[in-house]
């Protein structure tokens, strides 16, 4: 459970690790947008080459990225099958009721698959090379303009970072409560669905109670240490925009240009 939420970050000293989180966040979103510019083999090959370059630069083995695809594989297959069976145009290979398989459909299916994999690889790259706290700091500075329309960006970022900080603590607690309830004869993960759902209740209630207590304690501690809203706060952690970050942005601009040139 721990791995799913937090353990994704892999410590490293690579070029990608040292990029500014603001830049990484922004470019990851930007990448998702430009993936939709791809519409032929040349563009997909170019994008795949870029992603492989980033993977190489991050010094993280390809296996971790492939693992990132696994939880979404059913969604991907479903979308690919939709494309294959319901696209029209081109040569018809097979026809049954509303289903048709055409060469265009097959190509579309492959493209959709590539699109998914590219996006997942890129977002996995972000989470593998950026600590959660860097991501939350990066989000805070990217969203800063929203403070003008009264969005509590500081508070949201602080909430996010506290939530991230408490994930391992609550996981520990969950394990403790599970063990305590097992000792009292609760079977987790056994029996039919209804039974399994029922067995979660003696886990959830103590967990809720204790996290409410924690929240209250934490609020008191924060107040005692002088927290009174985001206004007038300074930041201890520093984000530094270096030459490499500018280079990354330039690379992405060039990539966009190349995509527009290559697509038909």
């Amino acid at each position, binding site marked *: 459970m721990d791995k799913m939420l937090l353990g994704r970050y892999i410590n490293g000293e690579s070029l990608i690790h040292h990029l500014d989180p603001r830049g990484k966040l922004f470019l990851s979103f930007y990448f998702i947008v430009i993936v939709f510019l791809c519409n032929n083999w040349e563009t997909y090959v170019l994008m795949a080459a870029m992603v492989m370059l980033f993977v190489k630069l991050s010094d993280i083995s390809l296996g971790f990225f492939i693992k990132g695809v696994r939880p979404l594989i059913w969604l991907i297959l479903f979308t690919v099958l939709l494309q294959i069976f319901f696209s029209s145009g081109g040569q018809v290979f097979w026809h049954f009721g509303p289903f048709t398989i055409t060469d265009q459909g097959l190509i579309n299916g492959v493209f959709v698959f590539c699109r998914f994999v590219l996006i997942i690889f890129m977002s996995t790259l972000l989470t593998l090379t950026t600590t959660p706290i860097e991501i939350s700091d990066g989000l805070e500075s990217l969203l800063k303009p929203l403070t003008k329309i009264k969005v509590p960006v500081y508070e949201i970022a602080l909430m996010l970072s*506290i939530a991230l*900080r408490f994930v391992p*603590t609550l996981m520990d607690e969950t394990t403790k409560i599970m063990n305590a309830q097992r000792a009292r004869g609760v079977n987790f993960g056994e029996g039919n669905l209804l039974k399994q759902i029922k067995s979660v209740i003696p886990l959830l209630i103590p967990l809720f109670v204790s996290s409410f207590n924690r929240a209250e*304690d934490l609020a008191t*501690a924060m107040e005692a*240490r*002088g*927290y009174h809203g985001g206004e007038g706060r*300074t930041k*201890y952690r520093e984000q530094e925009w270096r030459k490499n970050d500018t280079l990354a942005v330039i690379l992405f601009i060039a990539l966009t240009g190349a995509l527009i040139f290559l697509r038909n």
Partner: protein
Amino acid sequence: MVVPFVYAFNILNLYFFMFRIMVLLILKTKFERERTMDGIIDIKDLCFRYSQENEKLDLSHVDLHVNEGEWLAVIGHNGSGKSTLAKAIDGLIEPESGEIFVDGQKLTEESLWNIRKKIGMVFQNPDNQFVGADVEGDVAFGLENQGIEREEMHIRVKEALQVVNMQDFAKHEPVRLSGGQKQRVAIAGVLALRPKIVIFDESTSMLDPEGRMQIISLIKQMNREEGFTVISITHDIDEASLADRVVVVDDGKIMGDSLPEELFQKGNELIDLGLDVPYPQRLKFELNKRGIQTPSEYMDEGSMVNWLSRSILKN
């Protein structure tokens, strides 16, 4: 004929006016000086209840006076109101009536944040007061709240971590720390803010014996060497015995105010006061029960061993 009179009267009035101002000023400064000399914390007739429906007061008519540089231990049962008292001093709860003065300043809504700068608090649960993502981030949290510049923050965080001997753990996340280490980080967070008063609200109660002794010796160092006024709310006899003065709280009232030595002579009564009785004291009690005469003053483990060895030699 009237004009000079009016003139003279006005001059007289003016003199009188100046005299009045002078008297007022002198009185005021004298009054203030008296108040600051009075002690760093003064609580007068403080009452508080958690809910209006409660018939009983959770703090009832508390008067307390803490001298500057003193180490005051507050002991009492669970639910006796001792933590409530600590929270009231820091303005974390609003009293029903009564006054609190901290460093000569009355605790009001306006002075609240200013007073909180003078008080650092370390709470019971090491996990529930760790706000930052890592050690240095947590120490910096209070500094960030005060809007201190980044360079200054880095200096202060480093210094504070050195005092609590956690400088090698600056980048560690809380999961990788023990309870005692987390409490040391909490203390560093307080030290970085440079308060005058530090309140320890049962800060050692959730720690293992080693962590507990480390925190207690750290409190001692802060009080004796660095001159912090310390209020420690505790069940721990070792912590209470190091204090200059011990206040007993029961049922929201202050029941006693004594030197630790005086208090610990009470033997088994201490359990009723909400303290865990130290082993030498229990041993003395048992010896007395068997008709063996023991010295009446309080003895720590070392002096008890000395006395025992000597009494064996005598026989």
